[in-house]
């Protein structure tokens, strides 16, 4: 009974009356309350009990608090009842007739019939639930539609990019009658669209002047910090550090990656390395790296075959580092791999250095 609030007989905005029944008594759980001989009104929002005599005495129960309704089997001499199981009261519930109730359900007893009406209440609740569901579905559809528009936009953008690529290629091949000036102008349009200089063969390999300059800058700034953190730093860390240092004119991730790809070509002492897992790091190219590869290859020749575990044991380095060295040797063509159920193992690269018979 502590879920009820005092009411004033006014309907809420948008509230409509559904059903009314006379001769209804409210029970707190199974206990009788003073709210006897009343009119129970089911609206679209609430359950309202009004005293038949004192029409100003009115208590209301929001339907949102009703969990479910069930018929209570009638006892001898007792009027038929319906129980409403309720949700707990919300913390800021307006004052009502009862402060605290031990029961989380109420019962309505029907002296003048109408006990089957609660089914209508139930139906009313289901109806409200259906309305809510419909609202959610509509919202969902709206969002999907909005995304469809976005997809269409992206498709158009792709077509634009493809078109400009085609034109860029045509310029490259000097087809069509385009003047020098127009060529320069078009190239600048392409750049603003994000397509690198079409004259260079691929954005991947050679990149723009901007990325080259950026690469030199990065190398100056990053060499010492990377040295200090053991010769290797995750690209995400690099990204954060660089942008924190810049303050303004932040680098985009794409620009960072493209600049890093230029390290090798520009003979800078850093390298972008992508692991199989997709993780990207910037690492120092130490003069020692080639020596380590050579050392690993020699060890491989001596032992005929090595697993990362075996290498780690014989050189006293961690298994992860040992695997890294073997992979580096493989990359340099000094080793080849053997994958089996037992794991991965490396051999001298006899494919490139065949055994003499």
């Amino acid at each position, binding site marked *: 009974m502590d879920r009820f609030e005092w009411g004033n007989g006014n309907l809420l905005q948008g509230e409509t009356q559904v059903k009314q029944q006379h001769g209804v008594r409210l029970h707190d759980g199974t206990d009788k309350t003073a709210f006897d001989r009343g009119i129970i009104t089911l609206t679209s929002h609430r359950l309202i009990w009004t005293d038949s005599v004192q029409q100003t005495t009115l208590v209301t129960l929001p339907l949102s608090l009703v969990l479910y309704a069930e018929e209570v089997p009638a006892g001898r001499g007792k009027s038929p009842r319906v129980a409403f199981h309720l949700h707990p009261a919300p913390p800021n519930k307006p004052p009502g007739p009862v402060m605290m109730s031990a029961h989380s359900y109420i019962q309505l007893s029907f002296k003048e019939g109408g006990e089957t009406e609660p089914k209508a209440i139930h139906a009313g609740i289901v109806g409200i639930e259906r309305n809510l569901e419909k609202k959610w579905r509509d919202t969902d559809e709206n969002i999907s539609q909005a995304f469809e528009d976005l997809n269409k936009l992206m498709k158009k953008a792709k077509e634009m990019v493809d078109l400009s690529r085609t034109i860029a290629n045509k310029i490259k091949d000097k087809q069509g009658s385009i003047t020098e000036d127009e060529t320069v102008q078009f190239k600048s349009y392409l750049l603003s669209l994000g397509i690198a200089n079409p004259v260079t063969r691929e954005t991947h390999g050679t990149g723009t002047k901007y990325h080259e300059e950026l690469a030199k800058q990065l190398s100056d700034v990053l060499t010492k910090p990377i040295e200090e953190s053991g010769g290797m730093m995750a690209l995400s860390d690099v990204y954060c550090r660089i942008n924190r240092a810049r303050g303004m004119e932040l680098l985009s991730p794409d620009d960072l990656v493209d600049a890093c790809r230029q390290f090798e070509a520009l003979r800078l002492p850093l390298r972008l390395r992508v692991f199989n897992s997709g993780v990207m790091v910037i690492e120092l190219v130490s003069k020692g790296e080639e020596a380590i590869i050579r050392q690993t290859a020699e060890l491989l020749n001596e032992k005929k075959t090595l697993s990362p575990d075996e290498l780690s044991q014989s050189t006293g380095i961690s298994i992860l580092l040992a695997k890294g060295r073997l992979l580096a040797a493989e990359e340099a063509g000094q080793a080849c791999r053997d994958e*089996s159920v037992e794991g991965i193992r490396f051999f001298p690269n006899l494919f490139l250095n065949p055994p003499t018979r």
Partner: protein
Amino acid sequence: MASFQWPWQYEFPPFFTLQPNLETKKKQVAAWCDLVLAYHKHHKIFNLDVKESQSSPLFNNTKIDRKLSTDAIYSILEELRVKGNIEWTDKTRAQCLVMWRTPEEWGNLIYRWASGCGMTNTVCTLYELAHGDDTKREEFFGLDDWLLKRALRTLEKQRKAEIMSFGTSEGVKFF
């Protein structure tokens, strides 16, 4: 028939793992292509069923407990297809024809034999050609019918031969 001589790679475990290093992979796949063709040539087999091949000694060396994955097998077969040595019999790539010599190469071999024996301007049946006493020592002895015909057709294009049919059997005339 002498037993097949496996190349040194066959005993080398990494041979059965498709190498990630491109340069290394090139050498590896080339070696596999040679092996596949040599194996089929030795056993005079002209076709390959991918599923069966997985368990054949060709791709499965039980001695070192290593075998090629299906992906690796398809990579090698694709390389052979590009070189003209195999041909898929259907879109599902379940089976293929194996030509350790291309039809042109076969055609030339056959024609060399034919003109060497003075067989020009005479007719011989396809059966005689591939299974006769006269050709026992020739490499094309035992050639599958479909491949024999393809070979002869390349000669036809060069006007060096003409395929004819007599009732149920077929023959060829060399010019």
